[in-house]
């Protein structure tokens, strides 16, 4: 297992809101995400999981602290630069999939390549190959409404990994799935981490996903309270 850091975060502080209503969502969080690892970020609602995921994914910038993605710091970056970091290095998976309902599975995956400027036959071949990786090569023409929840999440995973990003960040990827589909999705994410040498971070409070993790980080009240390595 490779341990090259993909994302490094140190002393992250995130304050949300202003004045009396200000909330400290993160209070000095430091962590690294390495290739070939599936890391679980667990904690109760309001613990700061999604805020941390947003900062690690360069969607938000922290109030204090430093985030480096593949060696590039996101601090002080403008919206366009953050978008470039996300485009080049990060794939996202969301609880409610966020697939484009008017596009078929292949086009949903192609979209992630299109925003990177990869188009034409190359994009179609690459998207088709990734759909095969997630076991949906037969359903490339189906629209999201014609797919089950598990299948939709697999399309979302294909979209997240198609540009071969260094990190895949998943927000409650099993939250909307039943046990069987949830396990299938987690198995797929574990395979992606190990076989494709991605760093996968899964934010969850679903204990059923624990067996798939290489590492479990628990967060509470904006602080990392424990970190456990498995295997």
């Amino acid at each position, binding site marked *: 297992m490779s341990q090259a850091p993909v994302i490094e975060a140190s002393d992250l502080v995130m304050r949300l809101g202003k004045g009396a209503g200000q909330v400290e969502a993160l209070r000095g969080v430091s962590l690294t995400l390495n290739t070939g690892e599936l890391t679980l970020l667990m904690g109760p609602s309001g613990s700061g999981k999604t805020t941390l995921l947003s900062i690690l994914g360069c969607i938000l910038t922290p109030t204090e602290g430093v985030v480096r993605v593949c060696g590039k710091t996101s601090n002080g970056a403008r919206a366009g630069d953050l978008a470039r970091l996300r485009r080049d290095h*990060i794939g996202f998976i969301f609880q409610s999939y966020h697939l484009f309902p008017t596009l078929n599975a292949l086009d949903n995956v*192609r979209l992630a390549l299109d925003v990177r400027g990869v188009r034409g036959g190359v994009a179609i071949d690459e998207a088709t190959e990734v759909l095969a990786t997630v076991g949906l090569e037969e359903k490339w023409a189906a629209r999201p409404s014609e797919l089950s929840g598990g299948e939709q999440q697999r399309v979302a995973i294909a979209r997240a990994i198609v540009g071969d990003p260094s990190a895949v960040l998943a927000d409650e990827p099993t939250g909307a799935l039943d046990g069987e589909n949830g396990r299938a999705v987690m198995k797929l994410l574990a395979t992606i981490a190990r076989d494709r040498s991605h760093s996968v971070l899964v934010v969850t409070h679903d204990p059923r996903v624990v067996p798939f993790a290489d590492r479990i980080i628990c967060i509470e009240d904006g602080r990392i309270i424990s970190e456990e390595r498995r295997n």
Partner: protein
Amino acid sequence: MSLIFRLASRNLFQDRLRFIATIVGIVFSIVLVSVQLGLFLGFETMVTTMIDHAPADLWIVARGTKCFEDPSLFDKSNRARATSVAGVADAIPVIIGFSEWSDPQGGTTPVFLVGSDAGGLRPWNIVGGNLADLSKPGAVAVDRSYFDRLGVNGIGDTTTVRDLDLHIAVVTKGIRSFTTTPYVFAPLARAQAYIGTPANRISYLLVRLAPGANVEAVRGQLLKKLTKVEVLTPAEFRKRSRDFWLFGTGAGAALFGGALLGVIVGAVIVAQTLYSSTKDHLTEFATLRAMGSSSFYIQRVIISQAMLSAVIGFACAACLDLVVLVSTANSALPVVMTPRLMAWLFAITVVMCIASAIAAIVQVTRIDPALVFKQ
């Protein structure tokens, strides 16, 4: 098909009712604009039709004449002075003016007399009789589209103007007046009588230059020799007539105002529908942002939606315009469409739709990609 265009078209067609509302808005707007501008073009052509058909290199007009229909007169003796100028081959008098036509059924209707002799301003597009027939006593030429108004059926019908007998000797096709008052052509002396103008008073002199004569030099000499008149080139007289009727009377402003209103209405409808469509797809645009797309990428989706609306809306509007064109072809004021006008209309449609996308673009430019975690 590019993915941006596919996404744009699917977004556009997803809500059929909204799509139809958008297209109806654009069609309404563009048809309104094209009819107003088409009327403007038709009006512009019709107000100069007499000038366009007069065989003149220069027009001598009474000082201060505002348009062809201006009743200002000057003395016919100017003709002799004009023809004495070197370079002038001929100067043919024209009289114009309103009179009262008594139709055979006993009613009356106003008519616009145009009087001129051979070589002057004579009727064209003749479909009955011939010009030589106009030299017969009491002979006049009228357009067949005015038969009902004049209460006549064709050549040979008789009636009176200011109690003077006349008969239809020549019939034309398509010589219509934008004032809706029928033109009646007659030789100079009889037209003066029908109008009630003294024989020594005329409206215009149509100057024909001798071969090789310099227009400006002749004009300068004419101005030196003649008094209380102006000497205009046909282009100058055309412009003066157009400016008077289109802008001096407010008719042009009304037509342009209508066109502007059409653009505003269309822009508001397209802006409203694009904005609401964008709001409906905010999560998708936020997802694109989270995936790292540039603002420009998302803006292209919205602009593609606007462009697609413009093309479809314009195509539908063009079909309706064709119907308007055909149905007004024989009316008093036909709508005129030219390839150039259509090109302009398309440009207006595209600009209107893209400008309408600004509100939607501002909305997506400010979109927070963190929205994807909130839904």
